């Protein structure tokens, strides 16, 4: 029953994604392509991290290798060295990702925990360092670029053809990764995550198993990199940078590594967030960091965890009671966010060279600064009062919203037969609830 519901959701999501190009224009369509690629990257990363407990800090290596593999394939076709259909180019990324996953994974999986993470980080940094010197493979500073070859009736010129190519690959790879969780090796991954030591004494070569699982994760990561290369028709060695490896970690945790689709959601949302905010403000990385910290503090299960808890715990028909408190919590949150954004952006403007020059020109006196299309004087009470008022209002509302949310949550998740008993997360309770509904 649970399977079929997730399955239905996946079909609906796929249907929505399939119709999106009818509504989206160039820029948004391009954003959607990048979101899907990020989602695939996060799912592939989670295959190693969430399921087998291998927290890789160097997945940009396989992402980048997949991208370069794809570009070389496309370049070969462009220069008519060989024939290769463009829709199958991601296979090149898959093969290269898998092979390097085996090779690097063989070393990294000798260790567990932090040591594993450090080895993956070091291997990726190694690649980042030597890539610019191997200009035959990775191009020089500007990297390599090429164009998408036409295939059959598709020119792969317009964005929506690229969109559907990406969607098809992301959908197939997601399905394959979900199937992986249902195979004996996929189940073994969970056991390795829980307790690798025990697995060893049950007859499994855990080093081999971890290498294989890591390589499968790298295979799908390579596909994601190849899709990026197809979309951009170019890349350079900076794709190997540690920031790219860190990004997928952040996105996965925000999405929630404990659920299958959570990481995809987190990656899509954060990619969109980055795209929008990086155009608007130079502080967008700060905001991204704030989001990460808040999610880790208040919803450590990530977005996917939130959705899953709601789907499991909230009784049918009990949703209505939650709407009010959630809206209030949202309002409190928005007030605080507004206060934060105003403060951060004001500081940012005041610290720019242009503003400092303006104050010098005014003889060291504060001059008004422009923000959100309005002018604010630094020494005016309005300028100080606005964020303080926002913080105060949000700060006052938050505890109220919190109390109401908790009460509503208790109400919405209480069992009809044992109302009043404290909501316990034990499974017998869950079962009797399932039987009652």
């Amino acid at each position, binding site marked *: 029953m649970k399977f079929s519901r997730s399955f239905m959701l996946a079909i609906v999501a796929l249907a929505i994604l399939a119709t999106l190009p009818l509504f989206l224009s160039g820029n948004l369509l391009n954003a959607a392509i990048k979101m899907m690629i990020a989602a695939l990257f996060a799912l592939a990363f989670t295959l190693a991290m969430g399921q087998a407990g291998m927290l890789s800090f160097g997945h940009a290596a396989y992402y980048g290798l997949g991208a370069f593999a794809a570009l070389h394939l496309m370049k070969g076709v462009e220069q008519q060295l060989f024939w290769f259909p463009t829709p199958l180019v991601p296979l090149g990324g898959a093969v290269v990702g898998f092979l390097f996953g085996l090779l690097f994974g063989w070393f990294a999986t000798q260790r567990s925990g932090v040591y594993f993470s450090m080895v993956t980080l070091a291997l990726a940094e190694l690649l980042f360092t030597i890539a610019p010197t191997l200009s035959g493979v990775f191009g020089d500073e500007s990297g390599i670029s090429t164009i998408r070859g036409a295939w059959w009736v598709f020119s792969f010129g317009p964005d929506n053809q690229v969109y559907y190519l990406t969607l098809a690959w992301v959908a197939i790879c997601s399905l394959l990764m979900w199937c992986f969780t249902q195979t004996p090796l996929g189940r073994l991954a969970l*056991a390795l995550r829980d307790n690798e030591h025990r697995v060893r004494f*049950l007859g499994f070569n855990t080093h081999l198993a971890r290498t294989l699982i890591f390589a499968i994760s790298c295979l799908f990561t390579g596909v994601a990199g190849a899709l990026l290369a197809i979309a951009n028709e170019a890349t350079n060695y900076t794709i190997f940078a540690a920031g790219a490896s860190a990004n997928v970690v952040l996105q996965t945790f925000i999405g929630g590594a404990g659920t299958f689709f959570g990481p995809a959601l987190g990656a899509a949302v954060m990619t969109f967030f980055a795209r929008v905010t990086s155009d608007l403000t130079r502080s967008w990385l700060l905001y991204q960091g704030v989001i990460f910290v808040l999610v880790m503090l208040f919803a450590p299960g990530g977005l996917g965890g939130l959705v899953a808890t709601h789907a499991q715990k909230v009784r049918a028909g009990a949703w209505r009671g939650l709407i009010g408190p959630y809206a209030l919590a949202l309002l409190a949150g928005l007030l605080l966010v507004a206060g934060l954004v105003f403060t951060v952006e004001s500081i940012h403007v005041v610290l720019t060279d242009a503003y400092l020059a303006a104050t010098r020109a005014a003889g060291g006196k504060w001059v008004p600064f422009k923000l959100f299309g309005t002018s604010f004087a630094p020494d005016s009470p309005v300028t100080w009062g606005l964020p303080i008022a926002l913080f105060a209002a949000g700060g006052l509302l938050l505890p109220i919203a919190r109390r109401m949310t908790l009460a509503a949550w208790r109400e919405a998740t209480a069992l009809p037969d044992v109302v009043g008993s404290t909501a316990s997360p034990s*499974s017998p309770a869950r079962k009797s609830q399932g039987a009652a509904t």
Partner: protein
Amino acid sequence: MNASGMTAAEPVLELKGLRKSFGETQIIRGVDLAVKRGQRHALIGPNGAGKSTLFNLISGHYVPTSGEILLNGESIAGLAPHIINRRGLSRSFQITNVFPRMSVAENLRISIMGRHGHRFTLFQAISALKAVNDEVDEYIRKLRLERRRNDLAGDLAYSEQRILEMGMSLATEPSVLILDEPTAGMSREETAYIVELIREVTEGRTLLVVEHDMSVVFTLCDQVSVLVYGEVIATGDPASVRANKKVQEAYLGEEVH
């Protein structure tokens, strides 16, 4: 040192002059031990005697400093744990060691699927492996964990986790099962329950078990070896070991009032 009333069976597990040092200190100091087929063999000894260390040597967690470990006549000393398990020796741990975020059935399935050759199987759904899943059900019944089948192992009561822990080792169907204090930390009733269960599920199997509770040793086991300060000071049937002067001085004296 005579075998008990049973006919002399060949040893399945044999330790010969086994030694293990950590740095300067020798913890296992020349152990000779033979566990015969079909027998339940207890290993007793005071805290820190080296019982767990001996298990770690036998199961491949540590490499012996010197000496031999023979399983069915073949040397297994220094082999990797997974190889030793496949050769037919499976162990449980003194500290509960299960997969806490997996269900009881899935914990057992890991043990069972490996034995069926599904170690790295990628192109088959686990739900389609009928032989494996049937055996999982059989083991759940044997271990009397039917009501806990789909609960997370981490949510089980401590004594149930100990049963699962033992069951996982048992489910690899070893020719020798070695259990490190299966009743540690249990109440009297729980101990009686699990001892009866162990007796049931290890019927006809070869068992080496570390046990502190003497009444358990006397009811469950055919043979007893006493390990004191890294050396086996006596081996025999429970009654003769109980009567042994050296044993009484070194160990039982403090336990039997």
